[in-house]
């Protein structure tokens, strides 16, 4: 067991450090780096786009792909280092879906034509994706999805509704699943499509988050046409294409690393904030709480490294990565709520309030983090995966 980075890993990490510590200086004035920050204003979106272009140029959006398709053939571990550093500096520039969800599906199941069409565009960072998976009645039970795609000439014609479509209002493309055969067991009649969304037959409606920010959307298809050539994998085999898409760097290092940066700011804040005649930093309860967060972060970080290590050895680790998802998303909720407890009344003030602390980031985080415990598999689903796939408990 050796926790030392290899010289090559260290060099690469240094490169990431250098880039992102510089790049954050280009952030627009109100850039919070929070989860939805990139969608919040045109300025923020432009910042995201400009970083994406640079990352594409550097080849950092395709670190683990085969060289043949423009990748760097790095392992998941190098991907982890990239994700760690970027999140620490709260720099955007990586599409939430393209490099790590869509690309692995294409790499495993796409035809050469699909690969040659889409992978270069993803690695250049030029596509802004949104995800068309969940539906109102297909949440945790995703395979129940009801959006129908019916063959019609060279196209499929879609009708139905998607929900929780993060960033659809900023995106130009969507990857989605639709039912192409209603007469077979539910996993076996689903097809995986790629499509641009700047054409008729699709309506995107905002679905605001509880604190009124826009991340989610509802998406409605009304005879929306997708050419057959945009199907990834075989007809009716979309569920398995999707499963390949969960084969990305799943350690959750990003959440953890972002919080690590926040913790460092918090320590400084507590040292400079007086309450009842002494600094918060001197309050034994505050000390215990912040120490506990530091411990959980260090633990989550080590777990992320472990998950990534296993993945880089080629292992499929559903239980371990589910534990990472569960632990670090719940940690984010706990973190934000703990900070509000520490800040007291000040902690509830929003971004932009004259008296808000740390720009009200934690007021935002204590809400937005709820989404993280649900999206991409709820905490309860993560526990099911651990129980069934990790512990082999009976269903």
């Amino acid at each position, binding site marked *: 067991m050796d926790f030392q980075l290899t010289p090559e890993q260290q060099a690469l990490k240094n490169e990431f450090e250098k880039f992102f510590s510089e790049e954050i200086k280009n952030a627009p004035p109100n850039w919070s780096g929070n989860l939805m920050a990139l969608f919040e204003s045109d300025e923020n979106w432009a910042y995201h786009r400009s970083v994406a272009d640079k990352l594409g140029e550097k080849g950092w959006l395709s670190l683990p792909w085969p060289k043949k398709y423009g990748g760097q053939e790095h392992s998941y571990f190098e991907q982890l280092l990239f994700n760690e550093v970027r999140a620490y500096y709260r720099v955007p520039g990586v599409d939430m879906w393209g490099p790590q969800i869509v690309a692995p599906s294409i790499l495993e199941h796409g035809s050469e034509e699909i690969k040659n069409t889409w992978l270069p565009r993803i690695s250049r960072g030029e596509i802004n994706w949104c995800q068309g998976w969940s539906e109102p009645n297909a949440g945790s039970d995703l395979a129940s999805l009801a959006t129908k795609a019916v063959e019609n000439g060279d196209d499929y014609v879609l009708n139905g509704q998607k929900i929780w479509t993060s960033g659809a209002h900023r995106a130009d493309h969507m990857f989605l699943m639709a039912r192409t055969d209603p007469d077979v067991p539910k996993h076996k009649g689903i097809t995986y499509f790629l499509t641009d969304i700047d054409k008729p037959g699709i309506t995107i409606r905002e679905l605001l*988050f509880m604190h009124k920010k826009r991340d989610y959307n509802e998406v409605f298809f009304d005879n929306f046409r997708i050419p057959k050539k945009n199907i990834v994998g075989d007809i009716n085999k979309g569920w398995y294409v999707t499963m390949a898409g969960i084969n990305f760097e799943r350690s959750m290092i990003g959440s953890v690393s972002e919080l690590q940066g926040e913790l460092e700011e918090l320590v400084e804040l507590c040292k400079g904030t007086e309450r009842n005649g002494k600094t918060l930093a001197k309050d034994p309860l505050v000390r215990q709480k912040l120490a506990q967060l530091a411990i959980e972060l260090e633990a989550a970080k080590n777990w992320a490294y472990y998950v990534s290590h296993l993945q880089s050895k080629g292992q499929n680790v559903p239980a371990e990565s589910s534990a990472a998802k569960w632990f670090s998303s719940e940690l984010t909720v706990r973190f934000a709520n703990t900070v509000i407890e520490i800040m007291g*009344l000040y902690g509830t*003030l929003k971004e932009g309030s004259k008296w808000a602390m740390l720009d009200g980031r934690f007021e935002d985080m204590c809400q937005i983090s709820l989404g993280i415990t649900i999206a991409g598999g709820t905490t309860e689903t993560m526990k099911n995966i651990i129980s069934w796939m990790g512990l082999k408990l009976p269903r």
Partner: protein
Amino acid sequence: MDLNFTETQDIVRTTAREFMARYYPKSLVRELEEEPIGFREDIWKEAANLGWLGWVIPEEYGGVGGDFLELIVLLEEMGKACFMLPFFSTVICSLPILAAGTKEQKEELLPKIAQGEMIFSLAFTEPSATYEAAGIETKAVADGNDYVINGTKLFIHDAQVAHSFLCAARTETDKANPENGITLFVVDAKSPGIKITPLEAIADDKQTEVIFKDVKVSKDAMIGEINQGFPIIKRLLEQAAVAKCAEMMGGADWMVENCVAYAIERVQYGKPIGSYGIIQSYLSEMWAEVGIAKRLMYYAAWLVAQGGPCAKEVAMAKSLASEVYRSQTRMGVQIFGGIGTTREHDMGLYYRRARQAALLFGDPISMRERVAQEIGL
């Protein structure tokens, strides 16, 4: 001992439910949240007509002469409905006027409050962000027949619609005992020198910063004796803490009821999610912990109503209700899943309010410290 609700309490509850169903839909909550003022004259008048504003004010001052426990029942329903009008602020300010005001003050102020003609805002907390006496640095200095107030009040609810403030200011500095030297004043909100700036906070309740710069008030506006304001405020803070518990527990009731209903209705993998053990575990904990916190709240409220010492029980109730409401609304979001995180769903209204209410009138940490003192530590 009889732990049943009285007939009047039951009537108050029924009336409040009907009122909310009729005048106060959740869509209005969202509207009020997004407006800077967040007030509806017609609803306010209706509430006044029902006697709510003067519920605990004696009939001789134009009130109903009801008791504190009935008020608690009413506040539960308000919490359940996310009632945002400045009822809470006004009523808690009426209590010290009733308890410590002169006959003239009562005659002047209480009927107006009862009739809904005078909205009050409590100007107590400051940038020190504490409910302890030591946190009061706003000064009131005598000047002939007046006092001149200078200072910054922070986290002040409903200043944007208030006709008057009940303001705590320091008239004397006693380092050894900061509870000495605080005086209460009724201040006209239109007085020159008052500057109100909105603060946006998690619950979108109407908080403000209120700066008093050379604000003059007449000596007659003093509630209670000079320098003797803190005992009055202390009582008010106890009443307010329990009242806040009632709002929280009303909200918690909404949540348990609605989570249970959703768990029965929402189907995933061919079964209602409420049939899964992990969801049953969440829901049974929610139901039990909310119920338990609520009984403690009633006990504390009863003690408050009796008028005797209740500092320990109030602190206990506030701490437990706050913790339970926070943790249960967290679980509630998990029951509803994605939809519960949206603006269009009601769950978020409660999740956000839980985080705000926990800190108002004593956060759990300071309340536990109070309990520690009271049990002899």
